[in-house]
């Protein structure tokens, strides 16, 4: 089965060094690419535009969740059937996109999971394990890597999982909604390169994510 109208959404914040390479590699698998420059202070937008892709630019930095939502909303308005979300910092290898496209055929959402890697910082390993267990306990979704942002979902699934969080907790919110709406999901292993230990989810983000998950389970309707 061939899937038409596949879009890649790449949220980016200060990624002028890596964005062109990511776009180039992504283009081999997906024609329609949106880069959402989340108010970068460097030349991320310029670098992306030079690669001839659609660039949406936030005038101020809102966070990864908000940037991804801007891109996904735009893709859906333009009749996207499948959306592949990947990071701009070269943590996600676009050569693995075919795995996602193969598995989305029979699922609503495909989650990437990072294979256990000795380069993964210990605090991230523990934080991720704790959040995974909390998600399993609260929502019954058994996920190996709740914080991996490499994902693919159908437009129908997006309408259900469309998150409220504007920061990194959107990744957990997406899983929580997958459980709430009983969406079909699959996990695929991916390689990950840790390029910058000061980027991504921090310990404070982790605490916030766990608190939010408890709130979503018992209070929020989302």
């Amino acid at each position, binding site marked *: 089965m061939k899937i038409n109208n596949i879009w890649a959404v790449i949220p980016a914040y200060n990624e002028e060094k890596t964005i062109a390479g990511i776009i180039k590699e992504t283009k081999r698998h997906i024609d329609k690419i949106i880069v959402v420059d989340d108010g970068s202070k460097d030349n991320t937008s310029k670098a992306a535009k030079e690669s001839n892709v659609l*660039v949406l630019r936030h005038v101020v930095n809102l966070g990864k969740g*908000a940037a991804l939502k801007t891109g996904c909303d735009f893709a859906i308005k333009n009749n996207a059937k499948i959306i592949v979300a990947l990071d701009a910092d070269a943590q996600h290898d676009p050569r693995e996109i075919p795995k996602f496209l193969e598995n989305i055929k029979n699922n609503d959402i495909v989650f990437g999971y990072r294979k256990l890697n000795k380069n993964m910082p210990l605090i991230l390993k523990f934080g991720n394990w704790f959040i995974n267990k909390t998600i399993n306990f609260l929502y019954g979704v058994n996920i190996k890597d709740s914080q991996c942002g490499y994902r693919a979902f159908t437009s129908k699934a997006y309408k259900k999982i469309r998150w409220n969080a*504007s920061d990194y907790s959107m990744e957990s919110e997406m899983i929580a909604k997958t459980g709430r709406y009983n969406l079909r999901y699959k996990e695929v292993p991916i390689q990950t390169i840790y390029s910058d230990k000061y980027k991504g989810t921090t310990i404070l983000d982790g605490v916030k994510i766990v608190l939010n998950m408890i709130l979503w389970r018992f209070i929020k309707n989302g």
Partner: protein
Amino acid sequence: MAELLGIQIIGILFGFFLMYYTFLHYKRKEFTVKEYGFWLVLWAVFLIITLFPGLLDPILKSLSIARALDFFIIIGFLFLVGMIFYTYTIVRKNQKKLEEVVRNIAVKRK
């Protein structure tokens, strides 16, 4: 009364300072007449109670609170909790509005 004097002086200075601050906001046209009136009356009531804490005695008796100071602390605490919640709701509302505005600008300028 005498042992409360120190706190009363602080309370009076505080009340006058906030009245002045409210007045400044009004003069800078950051407050409407209504807002100005509301805050001015509030600070005036605060000053009167600070000067004549005895006025609170009937309320203290009915609430079984021993001292006016305790009453102030309880009211202050409740007020702060309420203000934090109110501020939280305003921040969340503004955050959502900002997100929508930024998103619209991003799409329009593509």
